[in-house]
């Protein structure tokens, strides 16, 4: 027997029957159903358990404000915890499970918490579990943590894809109810670029749930007709299944489009969801209103719902929660539910209205001035107990109770920029305040205009006003226009346990206790009781809590505080915010022109910023990386090696003031650098700390090529543009990056010149005399390919850097390898590069760590005092120039086989080992195959004056203490004879 609770009519497609499973039972449903309506249709009322007391939970609402009907949707790696059944569209094969229960939904062991609820009052945990100390960590907390949470993750990577997109419009309309549709028609007909976003899969909002007419159409039919017209307009984009989640600065709205959640499986390449960044000139919030409950004894049983939800299920989904229903209300709208249900042949046990002057009915009993004081039914409502005005009580049999405490405008987005809603006495509700996000206005029920006609009218007017339309407003259909006033009724007096936040189990009592203990501001209330912190963010519960706090404080609600909301409007999968930027696509990957060649050679690659660089090139017989690196170093120092240094930043600096500009940028001077020469450049931040280093080659009087470290290429370029545009705006200097233009290779080793002479075209003399150390120039190679040659050395060997247009990098590398065979040429990677620069004592990233000065690095002399170089003034501050300032030193273990550890600290040979006696630290360490010893560079107090001193190198973290000798940082060729050879 299936769909026993299905009625006639509704907006579902009975020609198609879909199968789905909940807690491993099979059921059927129809297109147009949500999981919630489908469960109700199949008479499933118990759907979940509450957070704290594990009380049985059914559906409270029919929309995205649902706190109770939340499930784990789908299975395996696609399992979605805490999914609202009320917004989950049914699809064939859908599978869902209840959550936060064990062993099963009907018999939940932790329901025992409910028996002890009196001891688990608000904030009880702050007052206990403190003794003995260890018990919290070992016993109490683990128990609390195990009980934490509702749904569970699959613990597998999310296999679906997500996209991000960007859209622009004149007017963004948020919500496609009567106000939103009318606004879109008004703006669309006027030719404006409109985006109309609605979270539902069928636009129309409340119109889809009501039986009254608009003009000569039924409400849903009028909505469908409006949608049809909007869809036909090229300037209107209707985005269904799209929730506008946040209002951000300057008219930017975040919107999540659920493109795949209603599909059994995603088509190849298609996203599950898209995060849209919508850039709007103006925005109109037409988000409608949310019905609010009344708190009374045991008001949390499955079957007790919002009155409007009962109506929605009956009218839109043709589903009734139970054959006998009752309504508990403080306003006329509640009666509308009774009328609609009665018209569908549902037995209305009674309408219980707290008002003595409530409207009467011929069709069913209306209990005026009455209140629901208790309910029965373990897993679902069976009876409600009503206190009559006279004091006697009546018991009504019913399987569902519709509750209406009035309506709250959905002001959420108006608060996203910390705007505060204001209290409206007539509505007894908060309406949007004055301080809205710039460009946002509000229409319809969201603005407190509760009648259908009023919504249509304010939608039309809102759009016209936002776009400054002068044309006449479109004609509006006749529609119900009943004036709405609400007399607040928040909770039934004298009840022991009446729920406000049904998911977090926050009751009226908890709010009163919160007040009693001094937690009296709204912020304290919600933090102390967890009211409104559940997955529904208190959409139905915050206002009740605030009202009760006001009552006990003897203040008005506005005096007590406001309920403001933060983004997102409804919860959003974390993956949606990430889009495609995850896994390998987290950041772009930059490859050098000879990457493919290196791959062929079996290179091992390492990430350097976004670059991939060859780290070393293992040979088939090499089993450990050290074998490869040692070989690369030995071969380079013995003959010749080639290293891809394309990743170094290259900046073209031109203009008549180019030299003067470099004088500002670098601490050392460049004015007198001759054309055809290169110079090492030391760059300081304005605070006097070393920022970067590199070389500047002068190709012409007004043309330099500057190199930066790979890591700092972007920040150095930015710094140069700042200096050029903001500090020296009249300097004639132009900058452009050429990093990607040139493939550049270091050719190093005693045979490097011989190798280059085989490819450099004969008209270019690169002999030591014609092309000495630090020379540079434009040349051609391999019969006419334009290239640049720099005689600079990082390794300390006779070395060059040669650059060719990137497209030829691969070919040049292959050519160098062929031509170099006779010299036993070796390609080397960043590891060997690092070994050789440390052997040579060149400072690099580990030394230029953002805290070191030129003095620390032994380059104090380079900081010219004769010119206005950035950073020179602040580099003179006292503390940066103390006698025992750190200085760059070389570190050698007394026993060569002992390993120097980068990050180890230097301590005197005897004396205590603690921070008070810390002498410095090791910045870089490698094994030198040349010295057959582990070596390191370090920064040590007064280091340059302590050559030959023996120190202890301690690294308690890696459990190491060795004795080392402090030596010059220049382990290899200190006089620099090799690089000048």
């Amino acid at each position, binding site marked *: 027997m299936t769909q026993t609770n299905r009625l006639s009519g509704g907006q579902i497609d009975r020609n198609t029957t879909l199968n789905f499973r909940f807690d491993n039972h099979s059921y059927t449903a129809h297109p147009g159903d949500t999981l919630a309506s489908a469960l109700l249709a199949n008479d499933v009322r118990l759907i979940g358990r509450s957070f704290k007391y594990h009380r049985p939970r059914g559906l409270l609402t029919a929309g995205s404000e649902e706190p109770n009907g939340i499930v784990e949707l789908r299975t395996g790696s696609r399992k979605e915890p805490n999914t609202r059944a009320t917004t989950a569209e049914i699809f064939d094969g859908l599978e869902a499970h209840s959550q936060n229960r064990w062993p099963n939904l009907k018999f939940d062991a932790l329901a025992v918490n409910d028996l002890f609820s009196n001891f688990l009052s608000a904030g009880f945990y702050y007052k206990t579990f403190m003794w003995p100390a260890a018990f919290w960590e070992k016993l109490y907390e683990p128990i609390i943590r195990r009980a934490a949470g509702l749904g569970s993750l699959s613990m597998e990577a999310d296999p679906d894809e997500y996209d991000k997109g960007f859209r622009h419009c004149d007017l963004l309309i948020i919500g496609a109810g009567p106000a939103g549709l009318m606004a879109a028609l008004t703006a669309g007909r006027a030719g404006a670029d409109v985006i109309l976003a609605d979270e539902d899969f069928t636009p129309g909002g409340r119109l889809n749930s009501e039986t009254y007419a608009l003009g000569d159409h039924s409400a849903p039919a009028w909505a469908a007709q409006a949608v049809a017209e909007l869809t036909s307009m090229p300037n209107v984009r209707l985005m269904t299944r799209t929730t506008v989640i946040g209002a*951000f*600065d*300057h*008219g*930017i709205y975040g919107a999540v489009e659920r493109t795949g959640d209603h599909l059994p499986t995603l088509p190849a390449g298609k996203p599950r969801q898209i995060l849209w*960044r919508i*850039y709007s000139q103006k925005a109109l919030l037409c988000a409608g209103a949310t019905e609010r409950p009344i708190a009374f004894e045991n008001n949390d049983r499955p079957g007790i719902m919002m009155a409007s939800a009962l109506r929605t299920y009956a009218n839109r989904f043709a589903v009734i929660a139970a054959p006998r229903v009752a309504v508990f209300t403080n306003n006329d709208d509640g009666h509308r539910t009774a009328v609609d249900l009665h018209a569908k042949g549902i037995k209305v046990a009674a309408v219980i209205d707290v008002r003595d002057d409530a409207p009467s009915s011929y069709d069913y009993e209306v209990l005026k001035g009455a209140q629901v004081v208790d309910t029965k039914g373990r897993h679902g409502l069976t009876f409600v107990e009503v206190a009559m005005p006279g004091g006697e009580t009546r018991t009504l049999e019913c399987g569902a109770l519709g509750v209406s405490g009035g309506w709250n405008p959905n002001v959420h987005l108006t608060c996203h*920029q910390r705007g505060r809603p204001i209290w409206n006495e007539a509505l007894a509700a908060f309406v949007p305040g004055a301080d809205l996000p*710039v460009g946002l206005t509000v229409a319809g029920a969201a603005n407190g205009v509760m009648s259908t006609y009023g919504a249509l009218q304010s939608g039309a007017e809102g759009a016209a006003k936002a776009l400054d339309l002068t044309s006449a407003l479109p004609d509006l259909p006749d529609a119900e226009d009943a004036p709405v006033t609400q007399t607040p009724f928040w909770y039934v007096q004298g009840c022991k346990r009446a729920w406000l936040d049904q998911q977090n189990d926050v009751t009226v009592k908890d709010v009163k206790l919160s007040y009693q203990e001094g937690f009296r501001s709204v912020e304290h209330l919600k933090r102390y009781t967890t009211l409104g912190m559940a997955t529904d963010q208190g959409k139905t519960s915050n206002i009740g809590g605030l009202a009760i706090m006001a009552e006990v404080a003897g203040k008005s609600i506005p005096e007590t505080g406001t309920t403001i909301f933060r983004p997102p409007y409804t919860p959003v999968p974390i993956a949606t915010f990430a889009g495609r930027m995850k896994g390998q696509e987290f950041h772009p990957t930059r490859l050098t022109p000879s990457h493919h060649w290196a791959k062929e050679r079996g290179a091992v690659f390492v990430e350097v910023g976004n670059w991939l660089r060859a780290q070393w090139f293992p040979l088939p017989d090499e089993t450990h990386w050290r074998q490869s690196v040692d070989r690369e170093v030995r071969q380079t120092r013995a003959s010749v090696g080639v290293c891809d240094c394309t990743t170094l930043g290259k900046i073209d600096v031109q203009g008549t*003031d180019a030299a*003067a500009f470099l004088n500002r940028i670098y601490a050392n001077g460049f004015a007198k650098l001759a054309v055809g020469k290169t110079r090492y450049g030391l760059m300081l931040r*304005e*605070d006097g700390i070393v920022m970067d280093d590199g070389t500047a080659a002068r190709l012409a009087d007004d043309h330099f090529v500057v190199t930066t470290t790979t890591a700092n290429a*972007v920040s150095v370029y*930015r710094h140069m*543009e*700042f200096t050029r*545009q*903001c*500090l*020296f*705006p*009249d*300097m004639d200097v132009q900058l452009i990056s050429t990093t990607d233009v040139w493939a550049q290779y270091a050719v190093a080793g005693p045979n490097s010149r011989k190798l280059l002479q085989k490819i450099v075209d004969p008209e270019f003399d690169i002999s030591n005399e014609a092309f000495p150390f630090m020379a540079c120039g434009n040349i051609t190679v391999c019969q006419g390919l334009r290239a640049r040659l720099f005689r600079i050395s990082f390794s300390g060997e006779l070395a060059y850097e040669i650059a060719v247009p990137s497209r030829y990098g691969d070919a040049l590398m292959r050519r160098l390898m062929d031509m170099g065979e006779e010299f036993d040429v070796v390609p080397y990677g960043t590891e060997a590069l690092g070994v050789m620069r440390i052997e040579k004592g060149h400072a690099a990233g580990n030394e230029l760590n953002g805290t070191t000065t030129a003095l620390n690095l032994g380059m104090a002399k380079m900081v010219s005092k004769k010119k*206005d170089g950035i950073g*020179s*003034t*602040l580099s*003179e*501050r006292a503390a940066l120039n103390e006698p025992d300032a750190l200085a760059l030193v070389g570190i050698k273990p007394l026993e060569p086989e002992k390993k120097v550890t980068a990050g180890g600290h230097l301590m005197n040979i005897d004396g205590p080992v603690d921070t008070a006696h810390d002498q410095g630290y090791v910045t870089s360490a490698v094994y030198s195959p040349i010295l057959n010893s582990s070596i390191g560079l370090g920064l040590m107090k007064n280091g340059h004056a302590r050559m030959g001193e023996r120190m202890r190198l301690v690294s308690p973290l890696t459990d190491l203490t060795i004795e080392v000798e402090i030596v010059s940082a220049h382990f290899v060729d200190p006089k620099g004879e090799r690089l000048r050879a």
Partner: protein
Amino acid sequence: MIIDHPMLGPRDASEFTYLGDASLIDRPDWQADDAAEAFYEYGYLRDNPAGEHQELWYHEAGDRSWLVVTRNTLTHEISKVELARDVARARGRSK
């Protein structure tokens, strides 16, 4: 946020890189007697107003212009956007 670039029109602020207070344009004279103190204040002290703030943004993913943006730090409202080079010249900077 959106920055209305004086040449390019409205652009998403995520295309820009932020530096800080536009007073960073007013780099002191390195030869002045109080240069040390002046550079310390220039480098380290900020008005940090809760309200209108003139600040430097760099159009890194765009045309590489440095801009001076006048923005309210309480509301994020932007009231003025200028090319930093023009501002620097107006403040008397040259070479």
